């Protein structure tokens, strides 16, 4: 039996267990004076208890078996192979095993297999089928044992509901800790490699160095770049592009939100709001494509016609498109905070004879300002972390410039460039990507925490 069929059989057994547990409970209840009322838990909880006792240990066994099976069988097959094959190095043996497995699973194999290999393959196949049977027997046996115990445990006073609920609660708690585990995982994965990186390049050089040229010679006898890892040009480039993006997104997003929530007719609102939100749903790779193939050449052409030299990978093109991408982000956040400003404030201002725009500019916006700032901070964090637009539309050369017409590179572009393609894991070049990742994570983390705090404070103010 394959693992899947075993699993299906186990599931069937579990449903049986549920039924058996429930029925036994009902039967017991029949003998009681108060019928089911005298039970501590409803019959279905007894059913669940039996089912859980049946499936959980069996599933555990199945898992362990699957994990260990391959290793055990492999070593058994190797032990059964002729001396000549056995004496191979482990890595070669792995290759031979690969061939055997390919032979067994019916894939096209490399060449005509030798008799030894054929024998080993037959052995392997035999062992696997043995193991499959043994596994099915063991798993289903354990399941049946669980079923039996569960069946025995059914009693009117047995607190089946509490038992089941406790189990479910543990599952729920485990699920909610995944968020923490993810954060820990992120921190660990970037931290370890970063520490290794800082073993080779000093943190001071990384943080304050003005030159970024991550290519290092890879052979002892090669004379090439020495590789410098000063991340400042990357910050400058990232901030430049983010700044351009915010220059586009904040006014447009804010004004759209204001217009839509304060002026627009119901019909315009019903059409324009989802349309703007559509911008948020477009994958960033599409924006990247658009930036690289439509906006950048258009900007260059525009520059040419005006006699200004604009790089085809100008920060401007990437920033503009990124700004457009962030518009819905800013506008929906602003919309939220603007709507949270109490109507009484608007009435107060209007009653004094303020025009609508004066009310908005002098009362609504100042009142909503903390919330808007929080939203903008979140948007900046997004701009800094945005990858595909800059990978496709921004440059690779780390230039220290704040001229938006020149090509700059960003932290995310460098991470991608350094890590795309199969990598060796010990050169500072690769490790640098993780140091940049750490930097990016920390920077956005700080921004996010500040922004979320600001927004939360703001919400509390009007709640």
């Amino acid at each position, binding site marked *: 039996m394959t693992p899947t069929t075993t699993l299906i059989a186990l599931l069937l057994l579990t449903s049986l267990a549920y039924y058996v547990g429930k029925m036994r409970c009902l039967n017991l209840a029949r003998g009681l004076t108060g019928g089911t009322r005298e039970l501590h838990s409803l019959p279905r909880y007894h059913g669940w208890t039996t089912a859980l006792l049946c499936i959980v240990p069996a599933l555990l066994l199945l898992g362990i078996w699957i994990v260990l099976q391959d290793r055990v069988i492999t070593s058994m097959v190797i032990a059964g192979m002729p001396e000549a094959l056995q004496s191979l190095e482990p890595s070669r043996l792995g290759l031979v095993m690969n061939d055997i497995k390919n032979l067994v699973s019916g894939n096209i194999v490399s060449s005509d297999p030798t008799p030894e290999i054929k024998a080993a393959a037959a052995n392997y196949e035999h062992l696997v089928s043995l193991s499959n049977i043994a596994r099915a027997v063991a798993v289903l046996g354990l399941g049946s044992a669980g079923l039996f115990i569960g069946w025995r445990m059914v009693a009117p006073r047995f607190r089946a509901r509490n038992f089941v609920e406790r189990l479910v609660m543990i599952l729920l708690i485990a699920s909610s800790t995944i968020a923490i585990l993810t954060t820990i995982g992120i921190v660990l994965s970037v931290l370890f490699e970063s520490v290794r990186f800082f073993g080779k390049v000093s943190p001071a050089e990384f943080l304050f160095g003005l030159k970024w040229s991550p290519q290092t010679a890879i052979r002892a006898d090669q004379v090439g770049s020495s590789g*410098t890892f000063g991340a400042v040009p990357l910050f400058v480039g990232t901030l430049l592009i983010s700044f351009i993006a915010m220059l586009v997104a904040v006014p447009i997003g804010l004004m759209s939100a204001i217009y839509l929530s304060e002026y627009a007719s119901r019909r315009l609102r019903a059409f324009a709001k989802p349309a703007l939100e559509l911008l948020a749903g477009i994958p960033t790779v599409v924006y990247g494509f658009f930036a690289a193939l439509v906006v950048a050449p258009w900007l260059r052409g525009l520059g040419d016609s005006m006699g200004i030299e604009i790089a085809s990978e100008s920060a401007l093109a990437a920033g503009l498109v990124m700004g457009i991408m962030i518009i819905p982000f800013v506008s929906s956040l602003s919309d939220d905070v603007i709507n949270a400003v109490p109507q009484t404030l608007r009435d107060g201002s209007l009653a004094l004879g303020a025009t609508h725009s004066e009310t908005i500019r002098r009362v609504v916006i100042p009142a909503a300002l903390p919330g808007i700032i929080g939203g903008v901070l979140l948007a900046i964090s997004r701009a800094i972390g945005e990858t595909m637009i800059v990978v496709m539309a921004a440059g*690779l050369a780390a230039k220290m410039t704040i001229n938006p017409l020149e090509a700059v590179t960003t932290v995310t572009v460098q991470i991608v460039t350094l890590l795309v*393609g199969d990598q*060796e894991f010990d050169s500072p070049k690769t490790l640098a990507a993780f140091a940049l990742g750490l930097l990016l994570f920390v920077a956005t983390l700080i921004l996010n925490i500040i922004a979320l705090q600001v927004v939360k404070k703001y919400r509390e103010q009007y709640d």
Partner: protein
Amino acid sequence: MINKRVILATAVVATALTTSQTSSASRDFISIVGSSTVYPFATVVAETFGKASGYKTPKIEATGSGGGMKLFCTGVGVEHPDITNSSRRIKKSEFDKCQANGVKEIIEVKVGYDGIVIANSKDAKQLELSRKDIFLALAKDVPDPAGGDKMIANPYRTWKEVNASLPAIKIEVLGPPPTSGTRDAFVELGMEGGCNQFDFIKAMKKSDKNTYKALCHTIREDGAYVEAGENDNLIVQKLGANPDALGIFGYSFLEQNEDTIHGSFVDGIEPSFENIAEGNYPVSRPLYFYVKSAHVGVIPGIKEFLAEFASDKAWGEDGYLVDKGMIPMPDEEREKFATDVANLNALAM
């Protein structure tokens, strides 16, 4: 008690379900890494091979010759690549590393030739460079223009300063990083060729080989030479955008993009198919790929893939690789490597 068991159970089952498939599954496709110059040729062969043979199409990642070699030499086993492409010959140091890591028998296959061109946008003038110009423009240290045998940090900012017959545009060359075989070959053929023309440096070759190499092979790092990653397509696209810039890449990319870029003359010879095939063009190099013998016969399809690569319909005079811009080897050389491939002759160094 029960609680702990449930946690354990969920954890183990979760990992089991994810790893079960991976651990019992075996690799039944060829894994190829290496040079981005050979990449377009290898992918075409792989595609044809996949369709014609019924084997799975090999998976190919472009990592640069150096990066590929490093991965290739890490060891023998399913998790390591079977083949690495290289736009230069394997170095002794790399070969030794391979040996040390148990990659004993390596089959070397030369696939053809490729010129390294220095090209710029068609919007700009076609340049006529000499190798000396190239060296002076791109080396980190150059002989003092004031005379003498002193080396100074490269002072040249424009091509005109290098050679009065060249236009007065800023030196801006987009080229491959050190992981790339194109870079190695360019340094050896282009830079060293120019470097040699200074007698005092040439003399150093015998007396102080290390200094000689450092002088001739070190490319300036002050921004005039921009390392543009492994992706040669990207360089081509950037040249289209910036008429002042020059790019260094394989001839196949020039041929593919003849409508937007043109190659500079080097030592008076234009990079053309004929010039490279006949060996007139000074900066041309052979392309290789290397195969682990240990994997042949265990990973399905390697032998057949090699046969496809070494067949006349692929690398012959009229083969489809030639259509892709590769320059074929002379007949006798082709024959030799085809035999090597057929007999799995291992490389000795």
